[in-house]
């Protein structure tokens, strides 16, 4: 439900987006990262981070076999232990969507596909739209698109906006996550602008990174995006989801994201409908931490399956 924006004013609107003080944002994120989450709340947070996880493989070497293994892990992260929930989705390249769809049939795990010339976005709009349409046709429930950073950084906000609107339309029933690739935007001001632009254009989720660019997701950049979501919600009444992706490998990091989420957007956002963690290696660490909390003994990676 994109708010109708007078397109001629998009540029000035973007330049009018309130600024972000970098030092202050970093300090706030650092202070939230120091929250101490223990016992029952830790177990709950670990459980939630699995339920909100987009288990991801985005490699040139991905094969049907790899997708099959990942799908199995997504449905049943810990074989023999039904108390560990399934992840939210698996996230793959468009060419792997059909196999993932096939493997996940009968489960509640969604299929997410990156699209729009991921990760650079440097292609023709027609191709990006065709890729989106095909991915949805192949069975993708969710599309993770990248914004055109070239256009954004050169000030062509209109192009970025129009492309998101068009991709959203091409998605049909599929949910649209818009990747800002914050590591290429340079400032929190730009991150905030890109967040508002994407939400105004109809994003269901805004997402930090592709995972292919350093830095990927960081706590302060996530805080800035969540604050934009909060302001957008206040202005328009439309809740937009948030996905952190790239570089989140440990339970401790995942919990820090949940803390920032909780204290910025509140308990209503602590659900897979409004929050995702995109990660490829995080899951096993979370499983190890769950076992540590339950058994009181530090765990070894040897006891957790690699998929």
């Amino acid at each position, binding site marked *: 439900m994109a708010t109708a924006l007078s397109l001629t004013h998009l540029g000035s609107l973007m330049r009018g987006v309130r600024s972000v*003080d970098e030092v202050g944002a970093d300090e706030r994120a650092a202070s939230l990262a120091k929250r101490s*989450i223990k016992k029952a709340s830790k177990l709950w947070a670990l459980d939630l981070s699995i339920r909100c996880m987009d288990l991801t493989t985005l490699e040139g070497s991905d094969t049907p076999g790899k997708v099959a293994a990942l799908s199995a892990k997504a449905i049943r992260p810990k074989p023999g232990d039904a108390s560990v929930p399934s992840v939210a989705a698996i996230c793959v390249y468009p060419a792997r969507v059909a196999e993932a769809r096939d493997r996940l049939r009968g489960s509640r795990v969604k299929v997410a596909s990156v699209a729009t010339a991921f990760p650079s976005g440097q292609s023709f709009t027609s191709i990006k739209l065709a890729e989106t349409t095909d991915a949805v046709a192949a069975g993708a429930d969710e599309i993770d698109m990248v914004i055109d950073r070239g256009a954004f950084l050169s000030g062509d906000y209109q192009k970025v906006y129009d492309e998101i609107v068009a991709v959203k339309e091409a998605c049909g029933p599929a949910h649209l996550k818009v990747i800002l690739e914050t590591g290429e935007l340079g400032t929190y001001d730009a991150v905030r602008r890109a967040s508002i632009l994407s939400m105004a254009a109809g994003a269901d989720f805004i997402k930090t990174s592709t995972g292919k660019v350093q830095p990927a997701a960081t706590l302060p950049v996530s805080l800035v995006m969540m604050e934009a979501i909060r302001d957008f919600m206040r202005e328009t009444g439309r809740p937009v989801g948030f996905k952190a992706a790239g570089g989140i490998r440990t339970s401790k990091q995942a919990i820090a994201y949940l803390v920032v989420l909780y204290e910025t957007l509140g308990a209503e956002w602590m659900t897979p409908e409004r929050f995702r963690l995109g990660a490829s290696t995080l899951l096993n660490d979370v499983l190890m931490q769950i076992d540590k909390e339950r058994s009181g003994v530090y765990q070894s990676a040897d006891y957790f399956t690699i998929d």
Partner: protein
Amino acid sequence: MAITKRQAAELAKQTFDYAPAPEAIDHVRIQQRYGLFIGGKMVEPHSKRRFPTINPATEQKLAEVAEADAVDVGKAVSAAATAFTSWSRMAPSRRARYLFRISRLIQERARELAVVETMDGGKPIKESRDVDVPLSAAHFFYYAGWADKLEWAFPNRRPRPLGVAGQVIPWNFPLLMLAWKIAPALAAGNTVVLKPAETTPLSALLFAEICQQAELPAGVVNIITGAGKTGSLLVSHPGVKKVAFTGSTEVGKMIQRSLAGSGKHLTLELGGKAANIVFEDAPLDQAVEGIVNGIYFNQGHVCCAGSRLLVQESIARPLLEKLKQRLSTLRLGDPLDKNTDIGAINSKAQLEKIQGLVESGIEEGAEIYQPECKLPERGYWFPPTVFTNVSQSYRIAREEIFGPVLSVLTFRTPAEAVEKANNTPYGLSAGVWTDKGSRILWMAERMRAGVVWANTFNRFDPTSPFGGYKESGYGREGGVHGLLPYLELA
């Protein structure tokens, strides 16, 4: 290690309510009774009198501390005077070594000091751990470096120490204020007698132990405990050449009056009623953090607290909305819990003072807002409070509350902001929030205050001088300027 389906379902229903995360206290040893630290030893008070120090979060007695009388004060001053002879003549680089040692010992015993500070004073452990203790260590480290560089600080002069410094400090930052007082005094070659506040003496007594551990020569630092009477005996003792006081403006004035004509050197760091000024182009989310940090840091027991929020009328509504939402996430409770944002009010007397002023605000017609906030049954607590519709004339806009209470006023133009901000007998600090650099400097030029924070608030650093204009006192602590009150420039 599997859990049942039911347990799993319960888990899924829970909300993210942080489980208690109390800091361990088993590594901290608080004695039942303390003496006075005079001449390098803990000694029994001549007065034979002791008074309890309690944990304001539980109202439980932590220890009994000595109440120094005139004889005790005399002993402490004479121990300091004796030590002065050799300490002031010691090679400056050797003096520096002792201060470096103290800094290291504070770092090494950081957690112990933080826990004691929190138990005795009620401040959240995250603050004593992340602010008070590291800054105290940094302060000693910084002034240790000055000890053998004084001729670089004051070129063409021969800087000389003054003698025995009598130092009286408040209860809001007990260890940090001790560091602010003792580090520059010692670096300059003085010896000290320090009196911590009667409600928070424990970290100073732990510091006495650190002086012993550092093998600091006996008598260079003396710590005597007691209430206002002891403090007044100390500052009026003829052997004291220099008085440094941090506390209320009321007591500061009394000291200044009582020292008139005595020839003693005096510095005062007193109260404040700082304006935190937010312009319409400010980075709002960070401004909200700055406002929260400005007034709710250490329960508002901060002389430079941003207790008056001056907000440009055009953004008053969204800013206050954001502020109120943020207040609902503040966690008030057990100061030892690592997730606590707002701890206990330092004492019953202080709590009553806050309550009185808050009642006056309501009576005078201001609108009060407090987030839903369950206060613990025992101990002294006050919820974070915001007053809107406040006029300049209300008591809550003029008097220092020294509690978690914010008064919000609006302004239309920068000139009006300046006028309102300066319209107070105090002048300790000010805050300015705007995206425009030139306006920051324009505002800073016009603030009649000793410290101006721009797009931040309540920042402290040993290199940065701190102190007030007008009735907020005189003299500076921190930086090169912090040496001057402890030196004579021959």
